[in-house]
């Protein structure tokens, strides 16, 4: 076991002890696959070489937890179609600017003359609408439950203030159906989950219960520091050793078991489940995304503007889908690091710093080399 990265940890001693205990917990000859479903975890794991502290029996599998990554090509095309309307100021988080669509990215649309502006918060987009009453301001609303409440509250405020030149292109997704789809998929046998800390801040720990109850897999909602992830793995392996299947909260210093009721209320007031929604790599998953409630149609970009709404296949060379499902590792993709790099991404997983490919490209080539040479161990 390499100790190269231990010194970077908040407490090298604790990391060493946890790593040693994980090694003891791991049954020799058994191969453990533990999936983390948050891009923040993926980033932390690669940057801090967490995998190098784990015994060869324990494999971390990166799930579909990066919200930028899971938006399919067709929706990105729709976003660009809206952005290219002359009356529209299209506002977006910075990460979405570079996501490749059928005909370039939003950044390319901007260079062709579209008014695309990066914002930090949906409330900044609302301010742009307030300041530009003769323009139509559209916000590209994306993200898991962590960012959905911010969209919901911005929408409620737009309505309360009577701001009519503001609308949302809603692409919010929910993590639970994606986890269910992965558990249902025959491609992958998982032993447990590191649960998403920030999503759980909003939805709490209870929605994860079905994983323990119906699938008999441990879930440990965990924080983002490397020590948190190590402790999460430790808790998953402890449950497996004891034959327990429970939802545990490693991140209780931030996450309440009941989540944030005010956030859930704001979401429920403004949005409802779509019948189905396409995820990059995972295909269509029923009831896995949100749209605005009909009473907010005046603020719904999908109602106000005609969008192509066409399903578009990923570029042939791109295996982002398999990376998102955890079926292959980033470096196993044919174009990884050659045709596809953070500077010139082909797939979304290489765009966001939380995408598994970008995280591995930036850090893992160094931190994960040992494992890369040994891995992958087939289940």
């Amino acid at each position, binding site marked *: 076991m390499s100790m190269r990265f231990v010194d*970077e940890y*908040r407490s090298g001693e604790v990391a060493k002890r946890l790593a040693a205990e994980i090694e003891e917990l791991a049954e020799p000859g058994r191969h453990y696959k533990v999936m983390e479903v*948050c*891009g*923040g975890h993926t*980033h*932390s794991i690669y*940057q*801090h070489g967490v995998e190098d502290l784990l015994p060869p029996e324990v494999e971390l599998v990166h799930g579909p937890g*990066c*919200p*930028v990554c899971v938006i399919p090509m067709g929706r990105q095309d729709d976003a660009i179609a809206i952005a290219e309307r002359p009356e529209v100021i299209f506002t977006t*988080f*910075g*990460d979405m600017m570079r996501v490749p669509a059928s005909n370039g990215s939003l950044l390319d649309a901007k260079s062709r003359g579209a008014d695309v502006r*990066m*914002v*930090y*918060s*949906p*409330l*900044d987009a609302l*301010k742009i609408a*307030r300041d530009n009453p003769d323009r139509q301001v559209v916000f590209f609303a994306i*993200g898991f439950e*962590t*960012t959905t*409440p*911010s969209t919901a*509250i911005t929408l409620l*405020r737009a309505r309360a203030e009577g701001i009519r030149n503001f609308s949302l292109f809603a692409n919010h997704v929910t993590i639970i159906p994606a986890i269910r789809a992965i558990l249902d998929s025959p491609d992958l046998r998982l032993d447990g989950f590191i649960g998403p800390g*920030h999503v759980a*801040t*909003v939805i709490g720990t209870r929605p994860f219960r079905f994983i323990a109850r119906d699938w008999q897999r441990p879930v440990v909602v965990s924080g*983002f*520091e490397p020590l948190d992830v190590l402790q999460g793995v430790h808790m998953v392996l402890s449950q497996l050793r004891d034959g327990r299947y429970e939802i545990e909260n490693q991140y209780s*210093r*931030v*996450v*309440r078991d009941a989540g*944030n*009721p*005010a*956030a859930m209320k*704001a979401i429920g007031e403004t949005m409802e489940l779509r019948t189905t929604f396409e995820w990059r790599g995972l295909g269509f998953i029923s009831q896995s995304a949100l749209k605005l409630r009909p009473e907010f149609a005046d603020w719904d970009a999908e109602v106000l503007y005609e969008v192509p709404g066409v399903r578009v296949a990923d570029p042939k060379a791109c295996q982002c889908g398999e990376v998102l499902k955890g079926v292959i590792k980033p470096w196993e993709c044919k174009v990884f690091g050659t045709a596809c790099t953070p500077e010139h991404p082909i797939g979304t997983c290489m765009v966001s*710093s*939380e995408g598994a490919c970008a995280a591995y490209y930036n850090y893992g080539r160094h931190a994960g080399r040992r494992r890369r040479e040994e891995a992958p161990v087939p289940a």
Partner: protein
Amino acid sequence: MCLGIPGQIVELVDFHHHIAKAEVSGVRRNVNIGLLTEGPDAVGVGDWVLIHVGFAMSKIDEEEARSTREFLISLGEPFEAELDELEQSSIE
């Protein structure tokens, strides 16, 4: 956009719209605190919060804020980018 960044509430700006000024690594910007107004998680001036896209999402203690900030600094570029974006923000 997914990073939760720690900030300290330094001033209440607009009670009606739940807008407060938070200080994040030396940058002072308005954030929405409407999701943290009830029970033990209600926040006021002096409290530390984790901020996502301009919204305070959870109340944390000072030690958690400090260690989270150290962790984010260790991430390098993504945290710097997030701070740059926050600096451009002008929530009212």
